[in-house]
């Protein structure tokens, strides 16, 4: 298992009660695995069905394999401007 920290913002930070959470994933876990793990956290069941995950500031699709050194973040729908 590898340890991954995920940054949360705005509504998602409220849902999960923190601006950053940790998940334990199997080696070679994908972005989809990470999102599934986030759903098991308290409040995680309220996340939408396909939240946007970004790795090192770029959006990734579910099949992308993650590395523990990646900077991960879950982004609610953007509302700047």
């Amino acid at each position, binding site marked *: 298992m590898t340890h991954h920290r995920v940054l949360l913002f705005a509504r998602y930070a409220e849902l999960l009660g923190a601006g950053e959470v940790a998940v334990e994933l199997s080696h070679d876990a994908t972005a989809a695995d990470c999102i599934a793990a986030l759903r098991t956290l308290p409040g995680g069941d309220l996340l939408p069905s396909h939240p946007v995950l970004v790795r090192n500031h770029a959006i990734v699709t579910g099949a992308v394999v993650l590395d523990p050194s990646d*900077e991960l973040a879950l982004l*609610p729908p953007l*509302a*700047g*401007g």
Partner: protein
Amino acid sequence: MAFLTSDLIDAAALSRDVGASHHGAITTFIGSVRDTHNGRAVVRLTYTAYHAMAELECAAIVREAESRWPVRAALQHRVGDLQIGDAAVAIAIGAGLRDEGFAACRWVIEAVKRRVPIWKQEFYADGTDAWVDPVTL
């Protein structure tokens, strides 16, 4: 200069940044805090950002605007607590031709809304608040 700021945005300074002796057309856009949203009275709001990514995206947007058109572009987005009337975002484009200035200015504001990780929490006169979902205006 950072693209995100918790201080008041100085739009005139952005215009000066993109002005040049060969850029005769300066187009700006300022989006400011309105006192109502969907019929509800807004008293203030807070912008939250994924700072590192937002800075990178803003830089990329400026770079792309300057490669699509022969213009100079400047951009700032406010974060933190804003009052009614405060500028939330300001864009300035210095161009030789006004066609290109208007096109680039319009493109940058749409790109900011679509790409920069920033979120808005509105606080209403009735004491409630809400994270605002993006709306197509």
